[in-house]
């Protein structure tokens, strides 16, 4: 299976994808959409350049183990901002995963990447890893480490990792203390939200049965978002069905090119979710949702599994899609302003732009400010910030600057990965704020409205 020289067998994964590469006509429309090209100016760090390198490997003109292929394929954020601007409809995300598989078979990934993927792929290691993380977080060690470790290239990655951990803390009192008096809501584009409550209480289950992905990082560090997912869905008429023994969705593995383990993890989850009768699978992390909606492609070479994968993928929705579809029901005022940023794996990979804003719009008193270049990646990109601290840090600082310019009470984005990257960026800039998920705000709004009083409030 693993060969070390020659590109013939190594290129096979890409060879099979020749068809997918054909539509690229080298027009270059993707260049300005690419965060790495915009900052480095090297076309090898643009989508067109990377596709050209993939094509060269397929054609046998470039060794899959070469520095060029390894470096530039690895340096891609995987944000897929190039897809919506491509007139030819090149499936860049899928091609990137295949290219990464080819590249890593020719030349193993860095130790850090491999270690992180191994941890995510194993329930036991994951449990220990996140327990450690939560302990360091709650003892304040993470925040302290950020202050004590000097900024600089040598320890930059470790400092960022601690900052990310610290930034996964709940917004806590800051959010709960937001004023209750309802100043008029402002949505994007300064359109005032109607004050009438058109969506009233709905009997639980009337909108369908929903299972939700507990997730690795979500379960490990953002249990509060999982709880908010359950509560807000139930308050909007969904019946949430627990699914035991579920595991990692394999998104990090797929995006990293470890397609074998991605299929193993995805297959296991498909099996477990097939065991319950549900209409939807809700996801509150954009990267996971994007990967799960694409399970059909992941298993395309396996006829039996691909049918099952497609059936599963058809049920996957971002939690904000389900809430938006239901109205969503309006809660009580939470007067605050938020600087909103789009997660790439929602906006570009899933085409979900409006639904998270609909969720925010259901919170009276909220002032949503779309930040400048909200469609550009924050540099988090899974584990990119840790594996590429320099470039990821640069992209992250631009994002944080755009957020700070809005002078809002909270940074807000519907994806834990982006929340940590942005939160870490804020922390490193000396701000004590953390980023919040839109459903956390909706959850707070519902808590104040008393929608949970019958079932109790676990906050």
């Amino acid at each position: 299976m693993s060969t070390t020289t020659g590109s013939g067998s190594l290129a096979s994964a890409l060879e099979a994808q020749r068809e997918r590469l054909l539509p690229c006509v080298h027009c270059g429309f993707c260049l300005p959409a690419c965060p790495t090209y915009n900052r480095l100016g090297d076309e090898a760090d643009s989508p067109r350049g990377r596709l050209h390198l993939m094509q060269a490997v397929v054609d046998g003109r470039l060794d899959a183990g070469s520095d060029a292929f390894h470096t530039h394929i690895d340096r891609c954020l995987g944000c897929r901002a190039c897809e919506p601007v491509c007139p030819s409809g090149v499936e860049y995300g899928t091609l990137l995963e295949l290219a990464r598989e080819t590249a890593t078979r020719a030349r193993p990934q860095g130790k850090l990447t491999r270690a992180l993927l191994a941890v995510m792929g194993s329930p036991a290691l994951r449990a220990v890893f996140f327990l450690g993380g939560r302990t360091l977080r709650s003892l304040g060690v993470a925040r302290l480490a950020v202050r004590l470790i000097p900024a600089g290239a040598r320890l930059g990655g470790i400092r960022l990792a601690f900052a990310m951990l610290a930034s996964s803390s709940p917004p806590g009192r800051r959010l709960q203390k937001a004023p209750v008096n309802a100043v008029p809501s402002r949505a994007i584009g300064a359109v005032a939200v109607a004050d009438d409550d058109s969506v009233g209480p709905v009997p639980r289950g009337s909108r369908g049965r929903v299972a939700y992905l507990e997730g690795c990082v979500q379960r490990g560090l953002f249990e509060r978002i999982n709880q908010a997912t359950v509560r807000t869905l139930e308050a909007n008429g969904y019946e949430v069905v627990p699914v035991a023994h579920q595991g990692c969705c394999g998104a990090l593995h797929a995006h990293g090119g470890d397609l074998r383990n991605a299929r193993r993890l995805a297959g296991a989850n498909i099996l477990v979710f097939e065991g319950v009768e549900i209409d939807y699978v809700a996801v509150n992390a954009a990267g996971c949702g994007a990967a799960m909606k694409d399970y059909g492609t992941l298993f395309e070479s396996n006829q039996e599994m691909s049918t099952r994968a497609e059936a599963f993928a058809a049920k996957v929705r971002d939690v904000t899609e389900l809430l938006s579809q239901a109205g969503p029901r309006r809660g009580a005022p939470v007067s605050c302003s938020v600087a909103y940023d789009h997660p790439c794996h929602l906006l570009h990979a899933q085409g979900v732009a409006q639904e998270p804003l609909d969720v925010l719009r259901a919170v009276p008193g909220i002032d949503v400010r779309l930040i400048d270049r909200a469609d550009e990646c924050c540099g988090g990109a899974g584990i990119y910030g840790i594996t590429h601290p320099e470039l990821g840090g640069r992209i992250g600082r631009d994002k944080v600057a755009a957020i700070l310019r809005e002078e809002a009470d909270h940074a807000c984005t519907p994806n834990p990965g982006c929340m940590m990257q942005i939160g870490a960026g804020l922390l490193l800039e000396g701000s004590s704020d953390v980023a919040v998920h839109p459903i956390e705000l909706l959850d707070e709004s519902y808590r104040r409205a008393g929608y949970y009083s019958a079932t109790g409030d676990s906050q």
Partner: protein
Amino acid sequence: MTRPLAPDVVRGLTEIVGAANVITDPDRLLVYESDGLSAYRVSPRAVVLPGTSDEVAAVVTLLHLEGIEIVPRGAGTGLSGGALPTPDGVVVGTARMNRIIEIDPENRLARVQPGVINARLTEATQPYGLFYAPDPSSQSTCTLGGNVAENSGGPHCLKYGVTSRYVTGLTVVLAGGRIVKLGGAGRDSAGGLDLVGLFVGSEGCFGIATEIEVRLLPIAEGVRTLLGIFETMEAAGHAVTEIMGSGLLPAAVEIIDRATIEAVEASIFAAGYPTDAGAALVVEFDGTEAGLDLGADRAEKCCFEAGAREVRRATSEAERAALWKGRKKAFGAMGRIAPDLLVQDATVPRTKLPEVLARIAEIGERYDLKIANVFHAGDGNLHPNILFDRKNAEELDRVERASTEIMHLCVDAGGTITGEHGVGIDKRGYMSLVHNETELEMLRSVRAVFDPDRLFNRGKVLPDPLAET
């Protein structure tokens, strides 16, 4: 094949721009082997990405001393191979020089670095009620430096004119690293001969513009966009003749043929063009509100008289944007039909459009090639897109022969070999169709004024008798 640069040259370049901005690894250089015209492939010896005017000057000085050819490159979206590397050359890219230096709304001027993307300038000037008029179809990605080199046009150049009309000043690095300032402060020429006009459209053969001053225009008060649907290309061509002959001055008149409609409608930029139509005609009027409806009504009448099946009018900015997106992304969308395409670019007198289009279709049939047409009909600027697969060598040969025949056809009809894409490498062989030896000698002499040693973009544009073939 490509000779690597001597280590001391690489060291010299690295000292100027930093190691990250000098690319010498042959694997990485593969990415630069084509521009938007991917039928040609040549790897350069190196790529250098300077960040400032001074860095460009230092890089050019060093390369000049070594006698190394220089190929300027913007976003690499050109369609005549103008930024195609030469085997002995070093590519100097302007991608990192992407800053808008100044917007001066009172004088309606902007100063930019060459790597600024065309559309970004209009985005940045919009808050002042201003825009930058030349709008190549690649405006979302092409750069102003490249626009200056190619004297780029675009759909709205029918009314507004091409790049040369808007460039009022240039800072240029010449061979040997000399820096000169041409024009400036809103004047095309600082006195004397119009050197700015000479430089615009020089296709990278004169030097590298490192700072560009352009004129901005106030955004029109209103706009009307029509879509005419025709059963045949010929009928659409007649409508264009009618509209232009009636004394109207539309901002743009564009024709999209059936093959292009199919490609666009299959893409995410689907504009709602009917896929069973023979041709679609986009006509746009802009200006002060008064009179716009009148112009649109008259154009509509012309369309119906030429046999239009249907004429639609965009009723919202979103509808208008969708109509244009379909047109502007047409080139990229061709990737859905074939892996490679050769976009031709030629002009013919407007009245010859129907006849020339029929002959192009006939050429396509004879060579068994799919040719999709999408073009600026108002000024007779044709863009036949020949679709092919480079891996089929026999087909590639037919593409070349058909392409040559189309070029001869246009010249014979009283047209010329390029409307806006430039000559680059692709049209070099056709120069003698439109210029006699005396004229070519004049062009060479003009070039020698800027670059006596012919180091900038050698082998492009001019069929250089001394250059290797």
